[in-house]
């Protein structure tokens, strides 16, 4: 089970308005890996994660999740079990209380009326409580999500993932614009959760330091192509320099 391949892409490519954003990208990720995707702004990190999350379709190449083609797992419940997504703080429903945003991780298993009823009298409250305790937000259970700080919102998103329990977690810049202390807090929580639950994590990051500290493998992307892909400890400063190098000033 340990060396099972959960994500495999072959010659994946994507372009917007005729402009190639990802070209011929091949990689494979094994269960339990913690992969950081780094690279300059506009390199294609978000695009890659969107393709892996099946949010967008590639223009060319193949993608296999758990050995299956995406078309086979497009049913919402099945997909929710396989893949979970976490992004910057913007992705929670601001107007709902924390508990509902957490319980949203259960929507795939609930029918319509159960979910409607739950908006008034929350269902499976114990599960939500456990998850919120885990991320240290039990006392904010009934607070409106919009009132939380950025770091707290990020932790709510994690609580949702705890309920959803996907096999693969895809995170897009989960700690951008958090201060260093919160950022480390969030990253260490995220990576230890993934380790415990035997999940797999692929995350884009802006900070090289964090990538080295919390992840097992680093993929450097520049202009839609993989520049390097190796264990976190083996990445050299020269590689990093060429990754972020600016050719012209503007």
């Amino acid at each position, binding site marked *: 089970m340990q060396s099972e391949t959960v994500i495999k892409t072959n010659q994946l490519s994507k372009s917007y308005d005729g402009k190639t954003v990802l070209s011929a990208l091949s990689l494979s990720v094994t269960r339990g890996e913690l992969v950081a995707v780094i690279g300059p702004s506009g390199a294609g990190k978000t695009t890659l994660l969107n393709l892996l999350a099946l949010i967008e379709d590639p223009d060319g190449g193949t993608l296999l999740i758990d050995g299956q083609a995406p078309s086979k797992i497009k049913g919402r419940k099945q997909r929710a079990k396989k893949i979970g997504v976490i992004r910057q703080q913007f992705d929670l429903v*601001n107007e709902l209380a924390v508990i509902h945003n957490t319980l949203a991780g259960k929507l795939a298993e609930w029918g319509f009326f159960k979910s409607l009823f739950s908006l008034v009298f929350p269902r499976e409250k114990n599960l939500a409580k456990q998850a919120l305790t885990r991320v240290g937000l039990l006392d904010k259970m009934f607070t409106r999500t919009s009132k939380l700080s950025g770091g707290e919102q990020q932790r709510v998103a994690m609580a949702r993932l705890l309920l959803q329990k996907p096999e693969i977690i895809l995170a897009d810049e989960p700690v951008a614009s958090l201060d260093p202390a919160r950022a480390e807090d969030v990253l260490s929580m995220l990576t230890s959760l993934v380790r415990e639950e035997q999940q797999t994590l692929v995350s884009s990051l802006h900070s090289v330091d964090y990538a080295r500290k919390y992840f097992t493998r680093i993929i450097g992307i520049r202009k839609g192509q993989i520049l390097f892909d190796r264990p976190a400890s083996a990445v050299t400063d020269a590689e990093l320099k060429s990754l972020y190098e600016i050719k012209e000033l503007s």
Partner: protein
Amino acid sequence: MRKMIDSLQFHKKLLLTLLLSFIFILSLTGVNWNEELVHHGGAATLAQLFESLLQPDLSPQILLLGISSTGITLAYAVAGMTLAILLAFLFGIFASGVLSDGKKLAFLSNGFFRGILGFMRAIHELIWAWLFVAAFGLTPFSAIFALAIPYGGILGKIFADMLNDVPQKPIEALKAAGASKLQCLLYGYFPAVRSNMISYTMYRFECAIRSSAIMSFVGLGGLGYQLQLSLDDLNYSEVWTFMFFLIAIVVLVDLWSNQIRNSFLDDKARPYQGKISLLFAALLMIGSWLFITVVEKASLIGLFTEKNLNHAVQFVRGLMGIGEELPAFASWESWSDALALTFDTFMMSIMAIGFATIAMFLTVIPAASKIANGSLTMNKGWYGRVFFVIVRSIYIFSRAVPELVWAMIIIFIFKPGILPGAIALALHNFGILGKLCAEVIEDIDTGPIRNLSLSGASRSQLFIYGIIPAVMPKFLTFILYRWEVIMRTTIIVGFVGAGGLGQQFKMSMSYFHYSDITLIIFCYLILVFIADSVSELMRKAAK
């Protein structure tokens, strides 16, 4: 205790919704539903109306008449808006307080100017028109001033609010770079509010065209005059022809306003599109003022004659009940009559907003283009687009027709009373509410919705967990805001027999009972004040 507050907070919205629904149901009991509400011939009239809808009178003579009266209506609307914009600009800046310094003084002057703006918009344009006609006579300026004042009030208030909401950081940075207050206005505030202000002004311009059309009710010409004549002759085919003219300009203005909005978003299109729009607006304004001063021979100075002054004084004396033995506002009997009517009018407004809201909720989902093309729910289908076109057309149609004209038609079908008034108000506001709320759904932030869908939510679950919580606060704001507008308009639909204070107002006008009118306007101002404060309170509570 803490827990109770939390759970109150938690269920606050639910409680508020229940409360509002309860008030609406209460208002329905004001109508005697057992009685037959429709005239014996109501159904027949409705059939005639529909029949002639399909065959409007397209004879060249009527079309020419339509074009020329559309011109008049447009000219009055443009001229009125010109003044309104000037007023709004001036008062708006002062009311926002961005120019004032000392805290106490600023508070006072803001309050003062906000008060003026509030008073300007509290009174409906038709009442202003009537007051001006009484003072200046039947000159185009009566219509223009009548439009300029309430529209100046509402534009000024919105302008002030927008200025207040401008992010302060860029302004602070400008100040730090040494900019004076006026320079901050030029380089910071104006650029920030420009696009919102222009699109709101365009929306108001559309409303001003409708208001200008109904100025005929105090004897000023235009499309409304022709509509009224045709309705008096029960010539529905002609009625529809003029109605289509009205719809056509509303649609054109809507298209123009979209054009402008897009030109702000798209940089490449901006330089020439923006300039063309600006040039066109300038031409419209110049053309309208030329038309009014040259063709209609209205002269502004001519208004201020001694004769007009005498009339105005006479008129004000009448309103104040001078020389009357027992002015209406000093008589207990008149008060109790007026208060009963005030209550009816209040109920009419609640019923109207209730009907409009229900109709909006039933239609708004297919009316949002993001839902129609499936980009929000990731679910595509051709029927979405068909529904979209149909519902949007209904919205345009229902909002293009002024409340007053709806009332004139509805009164043929329903018996006089507050119900036809409520229906007429609901018909018009349903179109506006629908459009606004559909746009809210279109502007919704897609991130959270998409993420919910990624955690496995179905289409219907997306609605209750993602879309509804996100749009409800804005919907509530719009609904309450429309309610305020409806309250101001109740008096107008009463003019044509649709019940309430307005009907009494028309009677008193016909019989020249001026002190009765004072009493009615007073009651009406109370209603407007109540509506404004209640809606303000509810908006705060819902936050």
